[in-house]
């Protein structure tokens, strides 16, 4: 790719993609409507794609751009499509009672951002390029995803939390080393897709067995 990009422009585009990536992650925490959450997840997929494509254009690496396109197709296209289908089939619109209320979880997200910043210092120190300096953003999204997974009570929101974590890991991979080897990348994408499919089937079964996807219902197994 013979795109002529100045340093400043590269940094700006990269930061912008990272900002969008972070913003969509935070907004997932904010919104209660499941359909909005799925939309935000799709938007985050777009931001991730943009991130990879910017990195690829900067390094003039066609393979990286193609991988980016693949990642985009999966995370901004296929996965949101599958989730939307599950949503339509389920007919449950909202996250009813998160364990931590929304205002508090937004404040928690601020703390998580600080934590991510502290955690990623050794990573940035190893090679302080504009790309690695954005790693804290990815780790913030990782922690937010984990937080969503732990505190939300709908099967679909938990799924989105898991996928946020996964997006964040992918972003970290591309920001630090322009991605893991291609074989592994393919394996990861396939595993991710299958995991989503498995969880989707389980959601359907859960609906059949419990009459809903409220995970508070899951308390038959305990000691």
């Amino acid at each position, binding site marked *: 790719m013979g795109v002529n990009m100045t340093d400043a422009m590269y940094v*700006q585009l990269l930061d912008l993609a990272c900002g969008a990536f*972070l913003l969509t992650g935070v907004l997932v925490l904010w919104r209660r409507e499941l359909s909005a959450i799925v939309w935000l997840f799709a938007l985050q997929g777009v931001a991730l794609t943009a991130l990879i494509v910017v990195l690829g254009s900067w390094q003039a690496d066609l393979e990286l751009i193609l991988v980016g396109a693949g990642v985009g197709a999966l995370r901004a296209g296929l996965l949101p499509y599958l989730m939307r289908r599950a949503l339509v089939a389920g007919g449950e619109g909202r996250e009813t009672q998160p364990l931590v209320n929304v205002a508090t979880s937004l404040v928690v997200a601020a703390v998580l951002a600080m934590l991510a910043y502290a955690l990623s210092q050794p990573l940035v120190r190893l090679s302080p390029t504009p790309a690695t300096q*954005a790693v804290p953003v990815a780790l913030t999204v990782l922690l937010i995803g984990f937080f969503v997974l732990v505190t939300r009570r709908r099967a679909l929101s938990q799924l989105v939390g898991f996928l946020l974590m996964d997006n964040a890991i992918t972003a970290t991979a591309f920001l630090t080393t322009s991605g893991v080897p291609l074989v592994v990348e393919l394996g990861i994408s396939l595993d991710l897709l299958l995991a989503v499919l498995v969880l989707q089937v389980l959601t359907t079964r859960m609906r059949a067995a419990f009459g809903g996807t409220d995970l508070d219902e899951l308390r038959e197994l305990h000691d």
Partner: protein
Amino acid sequence: MSGVVGAVLQVIVIAVGSPLLVGVMRQVRARLEGRAGAGIAQPWRDLRKLMRKEAIAPHGTGWVFRAAPPLLAGTALVVAAVVPLVTTASPLDGVADLFAVTALLALGSVALALAALDTGTAFGGMGASREMTVLALVEPTILVSIFALSIRVGSTSLGSIVTATVEDPLSVISPVSVLAAVALAIVTIAETGRIPVDNPSTHLELTMIHEAMVLEYAGPDLALIEWASAMRLSVLLGLLASLFFPLGISGASTGALALLVSVIALVVKVTLMGALLAAGEVFMAKLRLFRVPELLAGSFLLALLAVAASFFLA
């Protein structure tokens, strides 16, 4: 010299134009809702009518009640003189940086809330307590988000921030600016009492915030408050425009023509934003009161992330 002229100009533009802005916004709402509307000069006509009435204070209220309207209008005028709207070279810029501006805005709000408490009525107290809840979240957000923008410049002077943006307009397209812009936009809406935080045209006391505080005012006092509120709205919208889209703003030494262009640019930008805000309000319902802190906590988080990002992505 042009700085002084510019500062005077922007005070005049704000003082005269802000009721017109409210008029434009009401007109936009009316048209979108299929009504004819009262015309954009209606707020001025209202103010004129109120000014001619006799000043009445409720029985048992003290000086706090009487001092609040002039204080509110006074702080709004000072802020209008300080904030870079027409020119970045206001002579007051050195003494009044972002902290002073925030403090002045808060001073006005607090004065009004105290006045509402002074009346001793149920609705006054309720409005005051709600206003304080909102204020407690709005002020830190304004501070933090403008602070995020100031890190890049290395100064908390609003003039320097805007000047830096004028010199490098593309720097606005960065996560820091985007996050700060979203946060500031939300708090502007909250601070000026618009939907979805508050409804400026409500007549249902239970849902009021701002309106509940001014229920006991009448005549010239009410006119002053209405005028000041309109000025605060215009100033905040203008500040938002200057920070993120400083096109046409004048520097330190410019001629009369440039100042005129700046004034026109300001009017156009603020009118456009006001119209957009009004159009948005038509399609939106007011949030339930207990959801408001959620919205504001979110905007605070965005502001904080903006600061974090300015360190992360430095």
